[in-house]
């Protein structure tokens, strides 16, 4: 019985290793993994993930193989007695310190990256976009040709007349503002998002950027990023927000600088026309 259990453990190790590092042997293009990273910080996060994978992989393989080994080898043998030992202070010290050093090192490296994501501000000339989430769409609010956002207030919100973000009709700056459900950004430039929510918690998740941030009613949260590749990227909502949570998906369109500049000057009507064209033109990134 011990032999069987041991072998099953080892098969489990092989299966798991294949699942994590050997998929493309069996599945080719259908391999499931992170989508291609299109931001520098995303690539940095991927690297930390890989270091962690190495550490975790070694720990996983060693412990499962060891478990399989001890049950394979140390079965009952007639009337023989087991070794009568209560432990080893030396071993306890060694493996406590070793695991401590490894885990804390990983932890510290991870915080350095975290600080780059959250404790650094976007550059002063970053492109600004306001994000207002609601059941069940993400609204992206652009300042229009004048580059100034119109004032918004909850009391002006009117979903049925498409004023999702609550633009104050008396504010001249808001006349040229654009509200749409697609995030349009320029290639290779810092984008500075301000995230808000009207009703419940949602979460802006852009897998290609390795970006995720909850949008929280009552809070105004800043996030910044820089996209290094043009394309159309999906933005699924990543915080349970009601029954259509699964269907609350937007796109991020990363455009070459010139195309972006042209759009930034357009009226809302023209912007939306052009957006429809571009959304059809770009295939969704897989």
């Amino acid at each position, binding site marked *: 019985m011990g032999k069987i259990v041991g072998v099953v453990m080892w098969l489990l190790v092989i299966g798991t290793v294949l699942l994590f590092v050997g998929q493309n042997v069996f599945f080719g293009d259908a391999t499931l993994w992170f989508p291609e990273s299109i931001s520098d910080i995303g690539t940095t996060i991927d690297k930390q993930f890989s270091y962690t994978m190495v550490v975790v992989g070694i720990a996983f393989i060693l412990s499962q193989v060891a478990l399989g080994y*001890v049950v394979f080898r140390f079965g009952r043998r007639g009337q023989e007695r087991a070794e009568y030992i209560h432990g080893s202070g030396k071993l306890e010290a060694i493996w406590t310190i070793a695991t401590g050093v490894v885990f804390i090192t990983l932890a510290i490296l991870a915080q350095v990256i975290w600080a780059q994501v959250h404790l650094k501000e976007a550059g002063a000339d970053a492109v600004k976009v306001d994000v207002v989430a609601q059941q069940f769409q993400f609204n992206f609010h652009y300042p229009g040709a004048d580059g100034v956002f119109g004032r918004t207030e909850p009391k002006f919100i009117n979903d049925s007349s498409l004023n999702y973000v609550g633009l104050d009709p008396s504010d001249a700056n808001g006349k040229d503002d654009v509200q749409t459900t697609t995030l349009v950004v320029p290639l290779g430039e810092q984008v500075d998002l301000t995230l808000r929510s009207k009703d419940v918690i949602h979460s802006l998740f852009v897998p290609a950027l390795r970006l995720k941030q909850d949008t929280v009613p009552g809070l105004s949260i800043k996030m910044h990023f820089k996209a290094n590749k043009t394309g159309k990227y999906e933005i699924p909502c990543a915080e349970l927000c009601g029954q259509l*949570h699964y269907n609350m998906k937007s796109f991020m369109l990363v455009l070459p600088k010139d195309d972006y500049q042209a759009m930034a000057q357009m009226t809302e009507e023209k912007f939306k026309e052009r957006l429809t064209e571009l959304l059809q033109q770009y295939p969704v990134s897989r």
Partner: protein
Amino acid sequence: MAEAHPVHGEVHRHEPPSGFIRKWVFSVDHKVIGIQYWFLALFSVFIGMIMSLLMRLQLAWPTESWGFLKTLLPAAAENGTISPELYLSLVTMHGTIMVFFVLTTAPQGGFGNYFLPIQIGAADMAFPVLNMLSFWLTFVALVVMILAIFANVIDPENAAATVVGPIGGWTGYAPLSALGEIAGPGQGTGVVLWITSIAFFCVASLLGALNFITTMLNLRTRGMSLLRLPLTCWAWFTTAVLALLSFPVLLAGGVLMLFDHIGGTSFFVPAGSYVNGQLLVAKQGGSVILWQHLFWYFGHPEVYIAILPGMGLTSHILSTFARKPIFGYRAMVYAIFAIGLLGFFVWGHHMFQSGMDPNTAIVFSVITLAIGVPSAIKTFNWLGTLWGARIRFTTPMIFSIGFVSLFVSGGITGIFLGQSSVDIPLHDTYFVVGHFHLIMGVAAIFGMFAGTYFWFPKMFGKMMNETLGKIHFFITFIGVNCIFMPMHIMGIAGAPRRYSSHDGLAYLGDGFKPLTKFVSFAAFVTIGAQLIFVFNLVWSWIKGPKAGENPWEATSLEWIVPSPPPHDNFAGHEPVVHHGPYEYSVPGAEKDYTMQTDPERAASAGD
């Protein structure tokens, strides 16, 4: 033996009860109460499993229509499909029922209640009546929770009348779960009932925790020093301390949210909320993230409440069937304490992306990775226990070995999630779902299986069938790996959780659908295999061979009393302890095990 020793901590002695109601329904006997908790958990786990079956059906075939569904749930599955709200209701109820009514009942209230007093040599818990109240309040909580599923049927104001309870997940985040029906179906009456149930559960757990702590500190028999306690007792004790300090916070949060529903308050709703076409003028001043702090301050210790008893039991069973002392008894006790203590300082790792101050994330992240250390220590000590052993591969032993394997698999992915930055792409994806299912939904459950197979002979006086037990183990062990390992891959690919269908997401790639179907098939097979376990239980209870006092040749005090034990456990005698709990294969001893109550002999290292 005939001397009258002063009993260490007198328990109010009562005559054995008479009459069916007093004996089996409103009993104050910790053994009956333990079995009641255990049956409550067994019932709940089957409800939870059926819910997961329906969820896996939906995920694998999102657009399919099922005849049997239309028959079973005519209101909720009108055309035989699982609606998005029904799916989310299943998600919510599955999580709530499993975490509270399975993982927080059987290991502690079930086995802990039954065996803590006996393992320490006491005649009952310190507060038997309180014990009975704890169980029945838990029972009422379960009834209310089941009512919550039917909230929209019983709510007269709701015209929809589909069978759908709360849809906010077991975590019930505000404002989705604080705003009422305006935020979604089932979020009005459904949430009110859900909170009420959880509030009852919190009180019941608090009463139970008081009992456990007092009993272990005050009612140990002569010679049962703290360092001679089985590791199961240390685990139950620490779990009780965690429950004592964390459940009140959940209760407080629940009360606040209840007031937001029925008292017109806005603890969790800020000003300027525009929901479903309406500006909520009356709501202002609330903090959304406050709910998460209150919930997870409870929620993180809660997951240790769910796993610690299983760890204690694994140590106990591994040592017993390895015929070898536990490796590093003291280190094991300290590790249990460290896990319990550190568990109170990491709740923010559930909230890295929540919008809380990013500086706090740094602290939470480092401490979270630190918890990996005592967990690793325990794993090394289990391996050390098995090294040089002479293992008897009984069913409880195999399930405990499985526990170690699954604890490693499940715990180790916590190293990814605990790093704040690595968590960014993984939070709220299937990576998290795979992680917590492996550690709670599988490792902890294996602890319960191990406990059942180990203690069934003592509780019911019959042996369970070993062959069926082993078949149950192999199918389940292989099955759960097939179900939950792929989920990590799905999460890495970016599949969000709590989605009733992933069909709309192109970035997941072509491999996603086949993998989803594979996981669902694995789930169907594994769930089916649990019927073998139930059959074994029933068959063995009726027709199993009679169990002696100590069928496993184990050393702790429950094995010196009859199977099942008499009403007052030790038949009026006070057991006297001379040895530690894991004195196996003592050199020079007659048998390869020394009972804790065996006479003293020349001192050896373990005593």
